């Protein structure tokens, strides 16, 4: 008769069943233990060890503990932005239209600043320079935040496991922005900027969906990908051009006012 493995005994202790094909049957294990003194001895030892582990003390918290915790964290909760799907339907369309209009303009200006982007004809617009400045600041800020997330991951300690929950949260926020900027860039025909944003979006989505706790190998894979795509460099160039445009835009806007 084959003896039970340690794994089978552990599964039996916890009342778990084995995987398909493992043929761990609780009743069969029980019967085997009744007839096999060797396995019974091993199982007894396992039980005693786990009983000793149970003797570790556990400080209890009373029913009021939850209220105490709430008092400690209440003032530290960030203000929650109103969720998109909590808006009434009509307001969603209003918000969507406004966002699209703003993003169309933002992508237009970002496209103008990207190297090699085709020169655009003059566009007549009221307060054009002031609007341009605001949008450039917004685009610059967005690019900087994207860059920071990628730099933090690229420079993390490569020898240890890493919790990237925080970076994932920020990447998740940036994905939506990136998608909207990219779609707008595509719509306005800025293929180069659309291509950079497409790459950035894919990287951010992958970061968002990665395990929160990544091992050194996964981190190394991510780094290699960032290096291979040259995405950091592209964002840096784009961001730098946007920042360079911010100063003249501010000066022009100041002169206009």
């Amino acid at each position: 008769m084959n003896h039970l493995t340690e794994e089978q005994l552990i599964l039996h202790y916890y009342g778990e069943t084995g995987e398909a094909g493992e043929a761990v049957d609780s009743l069969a294990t029980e019967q085997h233990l009744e007839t096999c003194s060797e396995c019974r001895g091993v199982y007894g030892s396992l039980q005693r060890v786990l009983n000793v582990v149970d003797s570790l003390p556990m400080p209890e918290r009373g029913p009021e503990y939850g209220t105490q915790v709430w008092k400690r964290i209440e003032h530290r909760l960030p203000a929650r932005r109103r969720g998109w799907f909590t808006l009434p339907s009509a307001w969603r369309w209003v918000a969507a239209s406004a966002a699209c209009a703003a993003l169309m303009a933002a992508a237009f200006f970002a496209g103008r600043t990207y190297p090699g982007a085709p020169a655009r004809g003059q566009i007549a617009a009221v307060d054009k320079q002031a609007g341009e400045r605001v949008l450039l600041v917004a685009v610059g800020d967005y690019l900087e935040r994207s860059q920071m997330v990628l730099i933090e991951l690229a420079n993390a300690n490569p020898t240890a496991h890493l919790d990237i929950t925080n970076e994932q949260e920020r990447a998740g926020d940036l994905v939506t922005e990136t998608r909207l900027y990219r779609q707008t860039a595509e719509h306005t025909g800025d293929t180069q900027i659309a291509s950079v944003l497409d790459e950035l979006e894919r990287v951010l989505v992958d970061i968002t969906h990665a395990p929160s706790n990544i091992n050194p190998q996964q981190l190394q894979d991510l780094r290699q990908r960032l290096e291979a795509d040259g995405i950091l460099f592209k964002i840096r160039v784009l961001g730098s051009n946007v920042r360079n445009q911010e100063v003249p835009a501010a000066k022009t806007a100041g002169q206009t006012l």
Partner: protein
Amino acid sequence: MECTDLEFVTRARAGDTDAYRVLVERHSRSLFRLAFRMTANQQDAEDVVQESLLRAYKQLAKFDERASFGTWLYRIAVNCSLDLVRSRKRRNEHMAPEDSEMEDPVLSLPSQAPTPDRMAMSGEVRERVADAMKELSASERTAFVLRHFEGMCIEDVSRVLGCQPGAAKHSVFRAVQKLRRALEPLVSTAR
């Protein structure tokens, strides 16, 4: 009828902080138990509870409504605990195996031949168990805590760990095997 976690999550997402308060009140005690098992220190466990609930609030939008809120929260708490344990390791801080309020009166009793019951309660045994637990890897410790102390099934353990059930099961196996090798001499002498 009492509202489900999901209903409170939906309200909290819409900005209702009172709804989140209910979730905090419901889950704080179990989070503390988990955090204490993971960190073996009361103050650290308190920090983990607070940090986990703050992180969860910030990430509410990411919560998948098909999942269990408790399991999701456990996953965040496990990550917070591991972060804390890792940072403490980096600082080479000494981890006290027990808190002062957990002082064991049995230790002060003179006895040359402890019975198994006395042994099980003694500070020495507790220290050996704590040492053995510290020897477990992060995934082994997490899987073991969730399966053994929290009574989660392997399927749920794998959800918290974010891995396949087979991998979670093997983490439990390895943890129990390591504990058994470390503690078996102790229980044999106590028999």
